[in-house]
């Protein structure tokens, strides 16, 4: 546990002492701020139109602007994350291997699992730090809506984003442990995750067995429920097992470095 914390501290230091964290977080916030403003004005305009229509014709469903904003905005976040997180995870192991510091870690009295978990929690922390301000935007909208939707909807939405991003980072860390080259690690992560995202594209709407399997495997399908404020057990199980699976593979991969070196 102490070694895990030592690795975690070192990784956090690496992110925040070097410019990596600042570049990634500020770009991410710039983009998300810009798009949030866009979605907000869009939703306000739409709700005004709805109100005018319901006054003219009567009996229309009231428009739920805050939930609409949350859904669209979280969908947008998922897309931005797909581009940003591979850049955060690409160096996690590739850089240690290239610099030879992996030799230090592997000849120190720490277990592989401590290295892997320490690194994973550190990248998860950085991810949470970059997400937190965007939750503030949504919170602000909810606060000024009438009637105000329950805050647990925001919580469910962001739990989804964390799980989705966590899966992406677990996959990215694993791929980083396979190579010394950071560019290869980033490209593999991006490609593999995009593939998992789009795996069910041909089968959407069909009820065939393969279609259902592929739809379950797609990383983005389970995300939709969370953006609606629903914490679905199948989604929770999906993401958590995804993360655990790739952390397991990373531990095996780090361990196998001892054997593979030729």
């Amino acid at each position: 546990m102490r070694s895990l914390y030592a690795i975690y501290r070192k990784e956090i230091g690496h992110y925040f002492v070097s410019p990596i964290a600042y570049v990634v977080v500020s770009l991410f916030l710039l983009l998300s701020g810009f798009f949030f403003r866009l979605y907000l004005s869009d939703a306000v305009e739409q709700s005004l139109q709805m109100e005018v229509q319901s006054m003219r014709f009567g009996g229309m469903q009231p428009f739920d602007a805050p939930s609409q904003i949350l859904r669209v905005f979280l969908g947008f976040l998922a897309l931005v994350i797909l581009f940003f997180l591979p850049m955060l995870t690409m160096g996690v192991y590739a850089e240690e291997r290239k610099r030879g510091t992996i030799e230090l870690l592997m000849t120190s009295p720490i277990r592989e699992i401590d290295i892997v978990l320490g690194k994973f929690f550190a990248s998860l922390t950085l991810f949470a730090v970059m997400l937190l301000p965007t939750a503030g935007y949504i919170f602000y909208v909810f606060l000024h809506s009438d009637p105000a939707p329950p805050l647990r909807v925001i919580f469910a939405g962001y739990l989804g984003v964390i799980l989705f991003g966590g899966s992406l980072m677990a996959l990215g860390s694993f791929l980083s442990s396979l190579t010394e080259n950071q560019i290869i690690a980033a490209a593999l992560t991006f490609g593999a995750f995009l593939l998992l995202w789009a795996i069910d594209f041909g089968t959407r709407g069909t009820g065939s067995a393969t279609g259902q399997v592929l739809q379950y495997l797609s990383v983005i399908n389970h995300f939709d429920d969370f953006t609606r404020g629903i914490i679905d057990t199948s989604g929770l199980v999906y993401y958590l097992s995804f993360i655990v699976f790739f952390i397991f593979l990373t531990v095996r991969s780090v361990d196998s470095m001892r054997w593979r070196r030729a």
Partner: protein
Amino acid sequence: MIEVQDLTKAYGPVTAVDHVSFTVKKGEILGFLGPNGAGKTTTMRILTGFMPATSGTARIAGFDVFQDSLEVRRHIGYLPEAPPLYPDMTVEAYLDFILRIKNVPADKRQDRIKDALEKTNLVDKRPELIKRLSRGYKQRVGLAQALVHDPDVIILDEPTVGLDPKQIIEVRHLIKNLAGNHTIILSTHILPEVSMTCDRVVIINKGKIAAVDTPQNLTAQLKGGQRIHIDVQAPEKPLRELLEKIPGASRAQVTSARADGHVTATIEAAPGKDIRSQIAAKIVQQGWPLYELHGISVSLEDIFLELTTDEEAHAQPAN
């Protein structure tokens, strides 16, 4: 402290380390000497648990490096060939991280850092970022890393690479001072380093051990005994005849003959015989002016070259 038995490491068809066996006693400094690619680094990596051996066993402080790898790693400090540094960390933060992953309790860390910085002469570099340090300083940070947690066994892979002559002397001094409390293995391809710092030398070539002994014994043991160099003003042929007649001289060789009559020659003496006075007497008897006469002490360099180049020829009948 360290026992290595028949250690073998094969990378596919290439055998990097071939049935290597040696032991190191507590407090001893063992030098690992060999040309580049001889298997020094591979042996060290096996000892530190970084990679497994193909066959054979190695034990450090009684623990098997493969079976009880974690326990072995608790007892060692290791400086790999390239110092494993994090360029974005300060020297202090780096050493603190090392102490944390080596499980050194919090209350001892400050003292350990101070001690390691003093030993490696890095006190004034404490707050500096590692990436801003010169190569020599980086190497010293690597060295500090290997000893900061006060391990029983310190394994150093080419510890003086990249240092200037003054720093090299400092580091050798440091290593000598560490012995006694620590058991040290260091590798090098620089010969004087071994004769200056090590209690015992393992000469390794092409993965096999060519010799294990103290530097003094290795020097004394060289076949052919002492060699004597002379510079005489004399006719070449009679000189050679004269030298060959001296009892105890096994071989006389004229190495150069100059136009002004100066002839230089080397005479090999049979082991255990000092024939210098006889040579001088004989030459003076002839009335030839003797300008120079001195014994050439055989350096480790000669032994090393002999052992590593004759390897091929000796290997055949041995098998």
